């Protein structure tokens, strides 16, 4: 990885493509599409990235809901310290 901050003015197509292929590396493999790891066109990578971020956002939303419900089911008095609850779960 070449210096990030030094070269501010002369960012060529190559550098951007390199970054974009790093994005591709982060995307989850979808078995229905590329069976071998072929290079997706940059616009496609961006598109997949957007879809991926949206999915992650939805997951956070769903998981927040589930954790809230989990709390509700174990918290009879309404006095549960959420932080302690989460901490104890993560220590398992």
């Amino acid at each position, binding site marked *: 990885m070449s210096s990030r901050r030094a070269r501010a003015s002369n960012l060529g197509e190559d550098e951007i493509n390199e970054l974009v292929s*790093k994005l591709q590396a982060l995307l989850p493999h979808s078995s229905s599409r590329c069976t071998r790891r072929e290079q997706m066109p940059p616009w496609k990578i961006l598109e997949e990235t957007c879809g991926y971020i949206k999915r992650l956002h939805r997951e*956070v*939303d769903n998981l927040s809901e589930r954790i809230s419900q989990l709390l509700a089911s174990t918290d009879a008095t309404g006095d549960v310290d959420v932080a302690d609850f989460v901490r104890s779960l993560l220590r398992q």
Partner: protein
Amino acid sequence: MNTYNMVKQEFIKKWITTLHMLDSSVDHPTNVTERKNAIKLSSDLAIAAARSGATVWSRAIISRTGNKTTNKPVARRILKKARNRMKNRCTTVRRNGSLKAKIRMRKRTELLKSLVPGGESINNKDYLIRETLDYIVYLRAQVDVMRSVAAVDLVIGDLQNVPRNK
């Protein structure tokens, strides 16, 4: 990935802190929906805090959360830290390629900018992609940790119900 585990650990640390913020806030959430929103808010704030406000996306989350949270002193502390790191990095856009490809890229780029917090303020494409790469790592950590917490649901559910034959 060692770095990834560090990210998760940092997120967990910060999430416990933001959840404490929640617990000690005056407006204690009562129903499931309120709690859900509070959990989500604290979780988002936690990934931003884990990044120490060193990126555009994390600062954007912190400043948008600052308006929502009821525990002002803690939010102000985190915001102050973020402001100290604020740097103006906007540079001009570089464009290459055919018009059609340019338009296609631009549309995708605009969408991406709307999805990454603070993305709209980033004009440099190189910078936007770096922010995106960074943001995704932290988003994944957020999801992984929250999944672990939510997964306990299965265990507790089994304990509360009549034990079934496995």
